[in-house]
């Protein structure tokens, strides 16, 4: 259908167009499918449905064109990501490409987005190097902050609690030996030191570890009353369970990715209360609440409490920028960089191509995972420490 108008030149072709092509490569299979299937893919689907229901993407002239989605499975392989994006750009000639899932994959994709001139709204990528990247790839946008941001926020919380006498100033810490865990733990070490918190146990475990008993036992014996795990979803679930078996009740319990997953609350119900993690929401934000409801209604699963809403917001930004600037990718990128957008996060504006207004720390309270840090941000909830001991189900 796209090639009907060959020979008329680009302008003519643009006039003839019946749809806007949006493409993306996502891990539908392989080890990354679990993460991508929660944070990213449902939001792409939800957004596409929202746009279609509204009659298509609106262009500056007020007309609407329906979306045509081109989807590839990257099968959790970097090589596939690269290839899929090349194909989206060269063969499918899509108008915009949505970002893949995962820090590594977003980085692998970045030079291609850049070379083909597509804006890249990287959401599920946590990296401290974002300021460098935006210089290298002008049309790249990094929406989830870096390890330092999260680590500093946590250190501050712990330092305050230490001063208040709630915590003893000692922390036991484990991290997963993968990009995410290492980024965070290497940011956390200096942050904790600066905040005067003593790290009494600090170990890294390999991806795929299923038994955390030795680490929990060591942490329990270490004298720390705070336990921090920069973990991945399966680990997060396992640590929660195994800590209950071991009757390990640190006053502060901070877990990694997966804490904000809907299934986490479901499995742990009341026992989730008080657990800290990355991300969070403002429970009073009506737009967000509405988004969560729609997400669950449309995709059948609830969104997580960290990246999901930001993914959706990034798509809203893209949509709005297209409405303002049309299909010129340069202009759209510039608009995303400089414009201000009304999204499910509320008023959203990027600073230096990065989203900085984020919840660095959140906590399960009353069945919701609410943002508590930065505490001075509007809508922040109050931190509750120490957390309750495990209750028998």
């Amino acid at each position, binding site marked *: 259908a796209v090639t009907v108008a060959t020979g008329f030149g680009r302008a003519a072709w643009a006039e003839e167009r019946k749809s806007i092509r949006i493409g993306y490569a996502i891990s539908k299979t392989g080890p990354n499918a679990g993460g991508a299937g929660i944070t990213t893919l449902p939001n792409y689907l939800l957004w596409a449905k929202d746009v279609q229901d509204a009659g298509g993407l609106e262009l500056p002239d007020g007309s609407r064109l329906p979306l045509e989605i081109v989807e590839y499975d990257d099968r959790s392989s970097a090589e596939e990501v690269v290839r899929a994006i090349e194909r989206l750009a060269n063969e499918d000639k899509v108008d915009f490409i949505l970002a893949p899932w995962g820090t590594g994959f977003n980085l*692998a994709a970045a030079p291609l987005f850049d070379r083909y001139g597509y804006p890249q709204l990287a959401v599920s990528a946590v990296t401290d*190097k974002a300021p460098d990247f935006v210089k290298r790839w002008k049309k790249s946008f990094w929406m989830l902050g870096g390890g330092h941001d999260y680590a500093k926020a946590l250190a501050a919380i712990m330092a305050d609690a230490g001063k208040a006498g709630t915590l003893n100033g000692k922390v036991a810490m484990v991290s997963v030996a993968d990009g995410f865990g290492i980024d965070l733990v290497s940011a956390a070490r200096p942050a904790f030191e600066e905040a005067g918190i003593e790290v009494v146990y600090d170990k890294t475990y390999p991806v795929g570890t299923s038994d955390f008993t030795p680490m929990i036992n060591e942490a329990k014996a270490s004298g720390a009353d705070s336990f921090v795990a920069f973990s991945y979803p399966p680990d997060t679930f396992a640590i929660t369970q195994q800590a209950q078996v071991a009757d390990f009740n640190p006053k502060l319990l901070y877990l990694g990715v997966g804490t904000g997953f809907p299934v986490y609350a479901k499995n742990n119900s009341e026992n989730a209360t008080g657990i800290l993690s990355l991300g969070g929401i403002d429970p009073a934000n009506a737009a967000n609440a509405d988004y969560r409801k729609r997400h669950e209604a449309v995709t059948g699963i609830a969104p997580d409490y960290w990246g999901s809403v930001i993914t959706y917001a990034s798509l809203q930004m893209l949509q709005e920028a297209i409405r303002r600037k049309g299909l010129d990718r340069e202009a759209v990128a510039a608009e995303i960089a400089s414009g201000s957008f009304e999204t499910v996060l509320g008023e959203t504006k990027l600073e230096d191509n990065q989203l900085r207004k984020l919840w660095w720390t959140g906590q399960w309270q009353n069945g919701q995972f609410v943002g508590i840090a930065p505490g001075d941000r509007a809508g922040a909830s109050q931190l509750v420490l120490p957390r309750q001991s495990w209750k028998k189900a």
Partner: protein
Amino acid sequence: MIGMLGYVALAIGWALFSGPTRYVSLATVAFFGIGAYTCAVFSEVLAYPLLLLVAGLIGLGVALVVGLATLRLAGVYFVIFTFGLAELIRQLVTWYEVNITGTLGRYIFLPVTPEGIYWQLLALTAAAFAMSWAISRSRLGLALKVIGEDEVVASHSGIDIARVKLGLFALSAVIMTLVGAIQAPRWTYVEPSIAFNPTVSFLTLIMALLGGANRLMGPILGAVPLFLLFEWLSANFPNHYSIILGLIFITIVFVLPNGVLDFIEKGWARRLPVAKPAEVHK
């Protein structure tokens, strides 16, 4: 295209050793990953050609050590050993990065264009193919076949099994390492789970097996259509990719009436240059 060439080169490299000797190796990704990682580690300090050289040398070194260790293993024990080896290397690299260098991912900012990668891979593939052609016609090729059939006969015929196996294993490893090193700049970011993705080993194996690991053209005949099949499936059936792919695999096995191995060996026998019955005179 680059991806396809990469797999063609990997499959040729794999078949170079595993084809005639029937030592099915799952260590492909170990060397591929070593190449990619070397590229990442030294990308800032070494000139590009030197980088490839260093990668090749490291691959060679590891292959020699591994080769020496695995000489005693056979059959499925060798298969799983090589798989374990790839995972062990991945774990050790991870552990080293985490505990010694304190970072996990590494960035590769090399001024290599996709075209550059493409031509390099093409040259490597051509070189690998030429090598496997030369070997298949040489004494070495016969030695490998004999080793694959019966090592006892091989050694009693005067073949130095250890040296032949080790040499070929190393050669095939160097090719795989170079594929990794050449391809790495394409990803910008390398971490163990990306560089040491076991899928690479499995795909290489399947491609070479289906094409016929014993035939000169086998790896190419396996890698190209399979690669295109993967592409076509993932482009057209992203949601049912697995199911269709699986069914195709099963069908392939069932359609070949005497099994895949027979199919491969028959094709191979047809190509055999020595002693056709007609040439024999009393």
